[in-house]
Structures are given as C-alpha cells and as structure tokens.
C-alpha cells in the first residue's frame, strides 16, 4: 500500500461557458461500422450508374425507394432498374438545415415520381434557381463519377 499515492496532474483544461450554473463543453463522437445489409444492391447500383427499385411479384406493388419486403403484402421483393427520367412530385429549397448540411445551403430537395412506379424517391435537384423548381417538372438522373456509396451519388437535373 502507498498512503501517498497521487494522480499525475494534466494540462488539459475544460471549456467553460458559464459559472452559475456551471456550463461546460462536452465532446462526443462516434464512427459506426454501418451495414446497408439487404439495401446494399441499391448502393452497388449507384456505382454502375443504375437506379434500382423494388418490385413485389406477389401483389404487384412497385417501389421507387427500395425495400426487401413488400409493405402491402409482406412478400420478398425483387430488384429492378428504375427509369432515369421522372417528374418533380414536390420540392423545397432549404436555406437552413441540419448542422451537417448547413455548408451546402441553399439546396433543393425533391421527391421524384416515375411512370408506372407506385412510390417516390427523395433526391437533390441541381441546375435550377430556387424559384425555378416546379411540381411536374421533368427531371433526369445523373451520377457522381467517384462513388461514395451514399444516396447522394445520384442527383437530378432539369430535362
């Protein structure tokens, strides 16, 4: 036993915002080992400049945003290639946003509708001024060359 045991002192301090009450900065960050699991073929498709959706062969429901099992009947879906031309179903231009995207503002979000497909696909629209976006506007998919395996590897431009 050492009755004179002592912790070593450090030179790290604490960022203090206020003293009454005491408000300090607390830092916290995470790197996940995230698996796209059954959604993976969609992201692989982006690297090949393909937009993949899901088709339910049991009930015929067709999804623009993929899902492994049908939301209507529960059957397993199969992958199919979506058309790369669609229309703006709705839109907004974000002048503020989550912290992660603040530096990208203003950006325009759209939901894209495709002929013969029952559901929509969320994406970014570029190449238009904020006041030029319109519901029903024909749009075309483009893909980044250096794939990042994120949904933003595809984006839309006006036809």
């Amino acid at each position: 036993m050492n009755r004179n045991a002592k912790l070593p002192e450090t030179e790290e301090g604490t960022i203090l915002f206020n003293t009454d009450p005491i408000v300090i900065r607390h830092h916290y960050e995470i790197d996940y080992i995230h698996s796209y699991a059954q959604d993976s073929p969609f992201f692989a498709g982006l690297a090949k400049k393909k937009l993949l959706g899901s088709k339910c062969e049991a009930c015929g429901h067709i999804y623009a945003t993929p899902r492994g099992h049908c939301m209507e009947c529960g059957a397993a879906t199969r992958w199919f290639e979506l058309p790369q031309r669609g229309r703006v179903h709705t839109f907004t231009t974000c002048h503020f946003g989550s912290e992660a995207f603040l530096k990208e503002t203003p950006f325009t979000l759209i939901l894209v509708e495709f002929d013969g497909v029952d559901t929509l696909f969320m994406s970014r629209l570029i190449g238009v001024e904020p006041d030029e976006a319109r519901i029903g506007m024909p749009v075309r998919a483009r893909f980044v060359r250096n794939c990042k395996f994120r949904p933003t590897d595809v984006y839309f431009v006006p036809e």
Partner: protein
Amino acid sequence: MRPVYMISGGITKFAKAHPDKDFRLMVKEAFDYAMDDVPGLSRDLIDGSVCSYFSDHFTRQLKAGAMVQDYLGLCPMPSRRIEGGGATGGLCLQAAWEAVASGRMEVCIAFGFETMSRVNTWKGNEFIAHASDTNFDYPVGGFYTGYYAMMVHRHMHEFGTTVEQMARVAIKNHRNALFNPYAQSPAGLSIADVRSSPMVSTPLTILDCCQMSDGAAVAILASEAAAERLCNRPVRITGVGCGTDAMRMADRPHGRVILLPHESEEDYRDLKYPGVHSFRGGRTAAKLAYRMAGITNPVEELDFVELHDAYTSSEIQTYEDLGLCRYGKGGLFVDQGCPFMPDIDYGSDAPARGERCLPVNPSGGLLACGHPVGATGLMQAVFAFWQLQDTVGKHMGNETLRVRGAKRGLIHSHAGTGTYITVTILERA
C-alpha cells in the same frame, strides 16, 4: 377495460434554455405542482409511472427516466420509458391510460421532458433528422422543416392552400400564447411579419415553425374509485386512438381516403390518399378515438382541440385528418375563422369570425408554447384538463383562454412525417 380519469396536471414554463435546471428538476417542479393540486394524493397512493422523452442525444444520458423516477421518490414502483418521436408525450399518456384501464394501477403518473438547449439549434435539427431513414433520407439533406415544406407544396398544389392561410395559423397561436404564462414565444404578429421572417425551407419561414425548448409536464391518471376519492373535478378519458405510417415519406401510398362517419366516398372521388399531403396515421388515430368516444361529427361534438402544430402547415393538414373539415378545406377552415378564439382580437390580418367556432390550440400550441418533445403531448393533456375542469383562470392567472362551457376536448400528438400519431378525447366527468 375500466374508466380512466385525469385528476391533475402540471407543467414548467417552456423556454429556449433552462441551464439552471436539469431534466430531473424540471419534472420535479411539474410533479410538485400536480401533487399540490390534489392534496389528498400522497405518495403511497401512487402505483407507478410512465416516462416520456424523445432523444438520448439531447439528454446526453441514457435511461434518463430512471433518474427522474428516483429524483421524484418513486422507487421501487414500476416504471418504463415510452418513445415515439414527436408523439412520445401522447403515447406516454395513452400508456398511463392502459395501466389504469387494465386494472394494473389505481394511480399512474405520466411524466415527460426534453432538454433541447444542450446543443445548438442546427445540431438539434441534425438529431431530429436522424428520426428519418438514415440510409435513404437523412444523408440527402435530412431536415424536418424541409420534409414538411415538401408536404405543404404538394398540399398547395392539390388544394390551393396559401402561405397567407398558414400565416394566419401563426397569428392565432402566437396571439393566444400572450395569455398563457407557460408559453415560450407569445407574440402579436401580422401576415407580413410571418412572410418577412427568415426563410427556412420554401415556403416555410421561421415563424411557420415551432422552436426548440426545455420543459417538462406531468399528468396524473386514476381509476374511477381513486378519482372520486382524490379529486372534486376529475376529467374522463373517453377515447384513445393511434395510427402509423411508413417512415419514409416517399413510400406513402396514393390510394383511397379512410372515411370518418360523417364523410362519404363521393367527397373524395379524385383524391389520391394520403400521398405526401395528408396523414393517414392521424386519420386512423382520430377514427379509433371517435369510435371509442361515440363521436360521429367531430366539429359539432368537440369544444376545443389542442393539436400538434409543429408547423403552421401541419396544423392545416391536421384539421383535415381529424375531420374538422373535408380534405382540401383546411385553408378555408382558417379563412372562415373557425379555429380562432371568439373573444380575442387577433389584429387586422385575422379573418372575420363566422358562425362555426371550434378553438384550435387555445394554449398557443407548439408554435408559441414551444416543443420540448417528450413534454409536449403531456402539456396538451394538462391544458385540456384545465379547460374541462374550468380552472384555466386559477392555473394561468387569467381567464382569456378559457373556452366557456367546454365539455369535450381533443388532443393530438404527432411524430416524424406522420409515423406515429395519437388522438385522445377528454370529457368533463
């Protein structure tokens, strides 16, 4: 199932930041207020609690409910946490209702809180956006105001809803809040004020959106026997309903309207439903709650509504889901003056009041009271309880927001882009 009553409620003043109080102390204040209002209720008569808070990220503490439970002195009674995004408070109230209705508890405490000031606003928006699909939605520019802005653009396209109608909702709720001492952002506004405030996501300006808040709320529910013993003016919960929809807005179907008793197929021959303009989860919750409470024509049979107006646009969308007007007529419902308080002067931009009057968000709603997520649905229960007890004057210090003769009210709690929604009907016993 047996009858369930609300016998007391308490809330803290909602504020942008309460750095002097952590979540335990905020709940304690609301709890003590509620306990003081039913002097006959001692701690040994409480059978357990249900806890409501949305985000471990905001709290910087997992299992925070356990810390509130011990701070309130409720250990070792049963408790659990309920979580369902923005509807967390409404779901919590219904969980407490289940505990009493089932006979498991005689007296159950529903407590809720959120401390959103612990990060900056844009980090907070990032947390909230993680309550959207993190594979397909969040990375594209996840931002709830953006999602709601896309919805309302579609609502405007389908039905002709206008930004002026939305601004009138902001005028109404902020003006009501001038008389609510618990509200975070009371104000007298004009349409020009709303439209010239900073644009967040077209067409929603910052005054079309609720703010982040620190706050807590408590509701105490009891069986009939306990309510009779403890409270001279209990309020009965006569209807509960809950509905859901797909997490991703993009997955919403375009099918047939779910009809309420006072509607017919003829009303909606060409409408594709719910699309992204309507909430079938809200319609489902209303349908279930109306059936249980025996309501067949809500606008005639309700005396007031406290609904989840996270955005001016979602208040208009929700009028329609609740069947206060037909789908597509939410903007007109505002322009006819229906949801305004009959005796408050809202300024020159307010519509003329017509014959029909059904005050919506007399408290000021989320837009003006604030939205400390886990507390919000319980805040609505507390305000509704005071209305039905006819104790608004006692608790708010003035009678301006009192809905005279109120016998039946509806509260509505809403998560995500409509993923979980609850509707609860309360009635004067």
